[in-house]
């Protein structure tokens, strides 16, 4: 099937098998390997991308279901050399170790801050509860997202 997906702002047309998973479309067809694959069963969240703004697990979405939609991946998060505040937060607060869950965590928490700019630690934990990190014990991820929220807030009130 021919599909057209706007990935990180750029429309892309490809001929794909109907059974192709969105995560494989991104990784294998478009070579956007920042989106990872971890579990097959929608449990781990390493594959989270935003589909028309909503975080989804791309291992459980068919590429053809994204036809006509906008898909945003970790590769589109930074603005040139300038990192998004969640990316900065993860670096500053040691919110990652092996880095494998990180792209999914970044996409989910970016979406969280878009809808709720000042989330409590409990809200952050709930937002990432569909995702597994085997390295950090989550505490520093929570701190990273709080750091990003405060950074954004400071930037908004600054003259």
């Amino acid at each position, binding site marked *: 099937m021919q599909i057209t997906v706007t990935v990180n702002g750029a429309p892309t047309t490809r001929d794909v*098998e109907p059974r*192709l998973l969105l995560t494989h479309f991104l*990784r*294998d067809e478009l*070579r*956007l*390997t*920042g*989106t*990872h*694959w*971890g*579990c*097959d*069963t929608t*449990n*781990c969240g*390493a594959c989270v991308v935003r589909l028309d703004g909503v975080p989804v697990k791309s291992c459980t979405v068919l590429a053809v279901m994204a036809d006509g939609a906008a898909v945003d*991946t*970790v*590769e589109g*998060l*930074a*603005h040139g050399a300038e*990192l*998004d505040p969640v*990316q*900065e937060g*993860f*670096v500053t607060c*040691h919110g*990652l*170790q*092996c*880095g*494998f869950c*990180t*792209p999914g965590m*970044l996409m989910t928490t970016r979406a969280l801050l878009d809808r709720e700019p000042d989330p409590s*630690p409990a809200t*952050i*934990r*709930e937002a*990432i*509860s569909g*995702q*597994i*990190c*085997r*390295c*950090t*014990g*989550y*505490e*520093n*991820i*929570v701190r990273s997202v709080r750091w990003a929220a405060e*950074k*954004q807030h400071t*930037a908004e009130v600054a003259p």
Partner: protein
Amino acid sequence: MTGVQDPSVQIHAAAETPRGYGSMKRKEDARFVRGRGQYVDDVVLPGMLHGAVLRSPVAHARLTAVDTSAAEAHPKVHAVITGETLAGLGLAWMPTLSQDTQAVLATDKVRFQGQEIAFVVADDKYAARDALDLIDVQYEPIDPVIDARRALDPGTPVVRDDQEGRTDNHIFDWSSGDATRTDAVFAEAEAADDQLVVAADVLYPRVHPAPLETCGAIADMDPVTGKLTLWTTTQAPHAHRTLYAIVAGLPEHKIRVVSPDIGGGFGNKVGIYPGYVCAIVGSIVTGRPVKWMEDRSENLMSTSFARDYHMRGEVAVTRDGRLRAVRVHVLADHGAFNATAQPTKFPAGFFGVFTGSYDLEAAHCTVTGVYTNKASGGVAYACSFRITEAVYLIERMVDVVAHDLGMDPAELRKRNLLRPDQFPYRSPTGWEYDSGDYLHTLEVALEKAGYPELRAEQADRRRRREAGERVDLMGIGLSFFTEAVGAGPRRTMDILGLGMADGAELRVHPTGKAVLRISVQSQGQGHETTFAQIAAAELGMSPDDIEVVHGDTDQTPFGLGTYGSRSTPVSGAATAIVARKVRERARIVASAMLEVSPDDLEWNDGRWQVVGDPEASRSLAEIAMAAHSNLELPDGVEGHLDATCVYNPPNLTYPCGAYVCVVDVDPGTGAVHIRRFVAVDDCGVRINPMIVEGQIHGGLADGVGMALMQGIAFDLDGNCLGGSMMDYLLPTALECPSWELGETVTPSPHHPIGAKGVGESATVGSPPAVVNAVIDALAPFGVRHADMPLTPAAVWSASRGRPLRTDLAIT
């Protein structure tokens, strides 16, 4: 979210980089947060094909036919490899890390559910999977051996009938300590009125490390040069290279193992799995690169199980709470192939440290290993070679003793912990603990937790509950652990004959920037940062000026890799020493530059200066340029500053820690909520405290998982009941509390920088704290012990006096 310009948060802000030790942002994060890490599955080689493994759906059966003709006819299939194909190459079986053999692809029987039977190579991974369905396998079922406790019963089917003359499922008996002396203390304790013997059966269930990235490889055998490049998920690239040379008969200088970014290891990526070998054979057969990445179920069902220790613990103790002796018997379920990753002379790993942190008169243990129809067990899972099991046993037993004596478990520990004046301490089982101030570490933890207040709150809750009020049960659990890490002295420790020493190479370029090459392999530990800091501290440089190279056997010195918390104790020591060698070479050059004797120079903050004359000095960068110049050097002195080193540790290092866990348990559902977790770790000198704390956080989450959720059971047909993340539950942010950390620092006296290692401390120390807290909460029900994982069902059953057996699903 855009337009933020704050120079204080630039990733590479030099002002934030310490000269040596201290928290600094990780060098590796710049790529990871941009999705620019390079994991094995991200690598694409020209002309690359894809492999998939056909696995057995049954646990024990004779293979009577494997028909691959339909799969071979698939238009996208390039090759189908079976056990028969491999047998023709002498590769159907491979050696394990424990002097056993393991089937690469089954030839005679399948011995566990998920065992590898055939390997398909196709144009893409979807086609490879399609073709698996076209392979027709005929099985002749055999009764599986699932219950480890029945594996040695007469008449039980023999799992490993491939071994000539074998008539049972017994692998080994191993013992440690002084049996006669220990038995004598126990006899005394049994006879004396003021003493008693406390016993309990304690299971450490089978668990799986489950790193988020599964295992995989890309084999690229160049048919012209004969050189094999293997991109693979390995924690030990050099050891793997040597093993491939031995297994496949390939010349070792024609093998390059590349381990790029690794998405977590935790021991899962220590061993060599059949899929790697199949990828190599696939590349040889097709003449093209072959990628194989296992899926999650393959990972959970076929690779690297850990623990599975059925332990009987006994403690001889005086009624006033003096621990005298410990006696242990372990039944170890090693699955179908004995593939445990342990130093050769330690078939039960370092379980011999089961005397823990206590001053005992005597101790003895026996371990019996058995085969069952399960995947290879006991491989590793952040366990420091079975210290996890040892610490869990002794810390659970100490709490059982406290329960039986009616004594506070903190008080019991205080009475029996080793004292600082006993170090270096020779344990009853022969281990030499290097340093520690255990009572101080425990007191810091109790103080941080507010232990007396917690006990008061618990007493109040229990009173209210007895009065008929509906309140959750509250439990407080302690653990005090001693780890033994940094394997190890090559005299006693090797893996398949390879001594456990590690190399380091340091090159200083003419402009004073340096490249450090190390043998250990990060899977998230942040080696690129920490090791740069170690070298930088020795040379008075910025860590930003040192690039760390690892994960490529063509570019790095030989060493055994990263597991058992050995990177900092072994490779970190090598790094400090190689940097000191560079510093000494620089001294000679500086002496020529300043025209003085080397003895007249002193090292001062990155410069060699003439003693007492700060004006007469040279920086390392100046010296490096001179070392590459036409400066005349003393006779016999080579130019350049580069140095190499191999570090052979004189002893293990012994980190310790005191943990306090507070839980609330719903008596109606058995659900456990972790309210607080206080962890005070003493890992000696901390190089990058931010990274150290991150390592501890991760280990604590692991402990929560193992204590409450993880655990892979089997039904009696041998079906693995933890074969996906829907069944094998890993902790999320909701199960984990906000960790409360503290520290004490007792440097290792024999390590060049006093560091002890920390990677697995929290995984070792936290499960007993959680379990002790849950059992403490259940005290009003008279519960003395229940096995992990303490799921709501397990807790509820235990509270009703019917503790569950958690290793088997018996219906």
